[in-house]
């Protein structure tokens, strides 16, 4: 897993390459540490993400909680069909801002 961060004013884009599973999710969480304090929008660009498990979703939800408490926004962009289907089947598409 490789995460590339790009900051534009109060918007942070995190592009993730590879897979986010129980082993790599803590690394992604670490990448976000200290980065969410002064942003109002966080975009996870998952175009190059091959696989996302529950462990990855839990990192996204952690960031979502931090931002939503301050009225901020989180977007999941480039979500692959398999992960989108899993999110939809579980019922997360009601709550998260997702761009395919």
């Amino acid at each position, binding site marked *: 897993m490789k995460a590339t961060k790009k900051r534009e004013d109060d918007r942070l884009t995190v592009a993730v390459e590879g897979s986010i*599973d*129980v082993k790599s999710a803590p690394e992604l969480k670490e990448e976000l540490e200290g980065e969410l304090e002064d942003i109002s929008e966080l975009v996870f660009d998952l175009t190059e993400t091959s*696989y996302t*498990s*529950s*462990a990855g*979703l*839990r990192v996204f*939800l952690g960031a*979502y*909680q931090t931002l*939503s408490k301050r009225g901020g926004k989180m977007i999941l962009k480039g979500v692959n069909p*398999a992960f989108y*289907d*899993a*999110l939809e*089947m*579980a*019922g*997360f598409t*009601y*709550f998260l801002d997702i761009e395919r």
Partner: protein
Amino acid sequence: MEPIEAQSIPFRPWDGEIVLDRKTLPFVLAKKKGEGSKTPEGTGAYADIVELNEDNIASFEGFVPADIADHIGRVFFFGLVAMVHDVPSCGMVWELLNMREHKEKESRILWLKTLDEEAADEMLKRYEGLLYEDGVKTSSYLIPAEPVCPEKEFLEARGFGADLSEGDEIIASLKQIRNIQLLKKTQAGRESRPLSELNQSELEAALSRMEKMGFRGLCDDLIFLPRMYFENEVSSCYVSEDQIQGLLLIHRLPSSRLKIVLLSAVGKDYNRILVKLMKRTMDSLSELYSEDTEIIIDRHNLATLALGEKLFPNELGKPFFIGSRKEKA
């Protein structure tokens, strides 16, 4: 076994000097049952608050979901229903956590229904009183997230946080599990046996051993659960060198779903033992249940999350709202 004076057992033994164990448990449960009370008449209360117990839970069938009602009667589970004009309008069920450890006591609300706000407030007040008696310092909740969720709004307005989270449970059909390649390649072996082959003292010794090692699965009250709580034919144990080295315990919910409440093994080969236990249980399940039978797997710690990821790489848990607040203890 030493004789026990029933009078000396307090209703809430976790605050006294009496240790809650198998000897004291029957007295505790009997007292808990007797304590189920209603709001006294003439108090001017809007709702009548009923404490749930094994004797009255059946009267709330259809109001309290069956799988939630299934918890009532267990030592650390409690519930209330608020009646308005003799009709149930609000209800809640919670579990007390860390009651047998030297940790801060917590309550976790597992189910909440608030059809009438005034009645719900009276019910919450009774809940707070019960937590105070139990010395509970933190109260949390975990309720299914819906786009419109009045229960979440109710709790949020009363000082609970409200975060979106992924539930720990994933549900797979028996067929899905049987088709996992790892299980297809595995032989259960002679060491994997049905739970029914263990006598009571062997099972108690195994549960105590697991508990001492920190394996309680989903149940803080694991060692107090009656044997028939588990499906004895499909639950499995792994016996090697005259020692029980692994247990896979299944509970059948009223909804007919099966829940894995403990999947633990000890020793250097614990991973291999877990897979063998799964294999034996799934083989025996397929003899007794249809392949559509749903099995609930709870990924309550990192190890089970990793196992879930390996076995069901594309499954996610349902969304839940979670939150907590400090209580007045």
